């Protein structure tokens, strides 16, 4: 598995999720730390397109051989797209958590929530504690 990375251009949630915000839309995923803690991802159980998700609440599940983990929404929104490629290749979440391993795309319903998320420095500081 790759070394720990946390891209500068993302916003982070304490529950180890990231958001790439573009206008009123965002791509969501789990951080390097989250996939490393979980181990090899073998199943992604996505929400349905059109479903609404609530900031700080679980919107999906990722599972490794040994454990299941809730994925917490960093922002509220409506699901526009889910990463279907993960059905056949869930390991992309481990190999490329910020790229091919993205989980969902959403239309933000409360874009102002982004201000409560962490920047990369703050997130790294949290991990070091």
């Amino acid at each position, binding site marked *: 598995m790759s070394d720990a990375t946390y891209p500068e251009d993302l916003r982070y949630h304490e529950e180890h999720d990231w958001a790439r915000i573009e206008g009123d839309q965002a791509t969501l995923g789990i951080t390097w730390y989250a996939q490393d803690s979980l*181990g090899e991802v073998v199943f992604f*159980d996505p929400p349905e397109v059109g479903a609404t998700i609530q900031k700080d609440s679980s919107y999906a599940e990722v599972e*490794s*051989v040994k454990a299941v983990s809730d994925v917490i929404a960093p922002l509220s929104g409506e699901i526009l797209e889910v990463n279907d490629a993960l059905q056949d290749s869930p390991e992309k979440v481990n190999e490329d958590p910020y790229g091919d391993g993205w989980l969902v795309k959403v239309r933000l319903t409360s874009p102002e929530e982004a201000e409560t998320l962490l920047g990369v420095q703050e997130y790294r500081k949290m991990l070091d504690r």
Partner: protein
Amino acid sequence: MTTDAALRHTPLYEQHVELGAKIVPFAGWEMPVTYEGIREEHSAVRRHAGMFDVSHMGQVEVEGPGALAFLQRVLSNDVAKVAVGGAQYSCLCNEEGGVIDDLFAYRLGGDRFLIVTNAANHETDLAWLGRQSRAFDVLVRDVADRYAMLAVQGPHARGVVARALGIELPPRFHVSHVQIGRRPALACGTGYTGEDGVELLLDPEVSTPIWAELLDAGVVPCGLGARDTLRLEVCYPLHGNELTPERNPIEAGLGWCCKEETHFIGARTVAEARADGTAEKLVAFKIEGQGIPREGNSVMKGDEQVGEVTSGTFSPSLEIGAGMAYVRSELAEVGTELEIDVRGKRRPARIASKPLYAKRS
């Protein structure tokens, strides 16, 4: 149960840390759950050779003129059938026929046996054996501190161990006295993976160099994660999951290791369960489609709960969700369609024959 502050370490703990293992608390010990990934370790054992530090398991020596009679009383199998140098699987049952532990007994001499206990049950087993031994001319000794224990498993395990350590290995279900690291040791033709292999009981003082030698010989270090997926695929029960003091061996499908004619403790209940049948039976199942079952999930038939999952996982060999569950006996037939309630989602499943995974010949 010990608290976090008192978690124990095996003699190989530093080696696991050095290899970058993920360490978890297990049965009072800090143990490696995986090094490079459960799937990789799992497939190393299925295809080549992997090794597990199982030094957390306990050892109990039973010695004396009454050793055989005593073990015949406390163990469910016919211990008299075991010749010197033999090994045998048994249940240790309570008066009600419930399973206190499941274990291997190795006959080291005419009047001398070694029992290998599950880590979580070691103290309970010792207390039970001590109490029951009073009526027999026998000494029950806790010898867990005398041994480090390494399970080397996989199609190439025997060859690699024999070459790397320069020892001759006993056939399957046998035990032999060997020298490992110039110290007396035991080599056992047993394991918990469904693959050929050996379990080595060696002097803790030489365990570090021996571990290193086996690593150098290409044996892949494997953690508790792969140990669990490997045993689950071949439907070996795990005490605490499939086996408990509240369930008898018959419902767990272990009737084959119970010989009621030996009048072991619990034999009466076991005989009754065998004759009358049990309300529930342990079955293996595969999920049809997506979803990974987990321990504690409800087994459903229509709107009715008809059982509970005892162990569930993603099977690395089959690449599907699979597990074992207790279900009502009338639904325990292979091929029966059921559903598993996986955190609120109904996942179609079908009862499968055991083992779930069998080597292609």
